[in-house]
């Protein structure tokens, strides 16, 4: 069985859904953020696969930008989390429900 682009796309989709599920199911902010990273990487995989499939370099280049952005998100995200959870024992986002309604 040959591994075609379709498989990569399917894997990308699967990873994306897993990431999204993590976003919905996990309550630790860090883990949720990791889920988002997983989603971004799923997209990266998709980009590479498509770029390769259509023979277009842009798809592969895009990945680098996404990775940079992801890194920037990590920086800011972690900073925010530290600010928020500095005085808390847990990192659960469910504790943050002061604003609602």
């Amino acid at each position: 069985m040959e591994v075609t682009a379709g498989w990569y796309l399917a894997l990308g989709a699967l990873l994306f859904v897993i990431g999204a599920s993590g976003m919905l199911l996990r309550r630790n902010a860090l883990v949720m953020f990791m889920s988002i990273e997983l989603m971004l990487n799923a997209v990266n995989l998709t980009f590479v696969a498509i770029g390769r499939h259509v023979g277009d370099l842009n798809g592969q280049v895009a990945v680098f930008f996404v990775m940079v952005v992801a890194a920037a998100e990590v920086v800011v995200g972690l900073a925010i989390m530290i600010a928020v959870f500095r005085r808390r024992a847990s990192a659960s986002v469910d504790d943050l429900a002061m604003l609602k309604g």
Partner: protein
Amino acid sequence: MTEISYLAIGPIVALTLGVVALLLVEVTWKPRTVWLGVIAGASLLGGFVLAVVQWIKASDEPDIWFRGMLALDPFAAFGAVVLTVLGAVAILVAWPLILEQGRRAAEFMALVLLALTGMVLMAAAANFIMLFLALEVASISLYVLAGFNRGSAASNEASIKYFLLGSFASAVFLYGVALSYAATGSLTLHGTAKFLADNVLLDSAALLAGIGLLIVGLAFKVSAAPFHMWAPDVYQGAASGVSGFMTAGAKVAGFAALARITVTSYGPYLSDWAPAVGVIAALSVVVGTLLAIAQSDIKRMLAYSSVAHAGFILTGLVAGVDGVPYVWFYVVTYAFQVLGAFAVVSVVSGPAASKSSLTDYAGLAQRAPVLAGSLALLMFSMGGIPLTAGFLAKLYVFREAVDAGYLWLVVVGAVASVAGLFFYLRVIVLMYMNPQSEEAAATSPDIRVSDPVRVALTGVAVVTLAFGIVPAPLLDVVTNALPF
């Protein structure tokens, strides 16, 4: 064609220089805050002037630079003009907040400028990855701004919610880019458009799914239902001084990007995406209105009302390229209104406050007539009362939607706008018709409106009234500000 145009990046460069200058000056000279403000102002002015030059120079031909990355068209130029002005007003509005920040003032303004940079780029991006980058630049700056008030639990909560959900939406957007790329093999907007014009897709599922995800990503930014859930919490949690900027900037940039990609790249698929946009519009209008009615905090109320307004603006978008000028008209006038409304909130409840209970506004007409008058005007405008920009904006988008065959959407919108009047009027009732009780009057602090805020409010009021009565100048501009 040469690949480099300094003019195309002019406003961005001006803003970025401002960011750098602010941070450098702060660490080297530690000047008084007002000088930092001057730097930010200069940067904004530079961006504005360059944007105007762009507008003048921009041709009616597609004019793409940096290997398909940036468009130099009236659309982008107009976006830059609006956003730089908006940024200036936002800084005026936030000035009391900035003064409170002490050493962090430069940081704050730098973040505002950085967010603006991203937003200007969103309007100008001609490549999906460029758009994604712009989106992230804007979003990340806004995540930080939302949590800028580190001592406030509400601000923290707003920040992390915004960050998590925003990143989630960005990922969805990016996946949409990937799917579109998969279907068309192009990452540039024009490449996509050309491909779709030249080829008939046998199976458009991937493309349409991509379009759907792209719409989701941007609908999230403009807080359209059902992707609006973050907005009330974030707008409430963030300091009042920045909530307005977050709302206004995100709306302008988000709709600019949405209009550009749907119209430029996916125009031929109008009949596929427009109904979906219509449903989102209707949902936003209804949900935003209904929930706004139930609020007792004016910031949340304004947040939900912004959801409703996102719906109204989307109503104009269902008409495709014909609706774009009116989407512009609506979003621009609304942006100034919401900025003004939050400005009043920041004066009444304090620039850093998260809560702003409606009861604080009782008898405001006596305590601060100028504030009350401005807010009343803005409320009427948002409610769509004639002789304000808000009325004409609604009229225009409704008309476009009717022309495009979306009568049902217009009926929903019209009825909802009446229901919406309920909460706009409630603010007015409180300000004008509920005299403050004696003891409340004794305890509540005097309201002093600082000069920058006064200038900003006056400007907003003038814009709201002027474009409500004489819309022609703005209309002439927006009808030319089409994406190519």
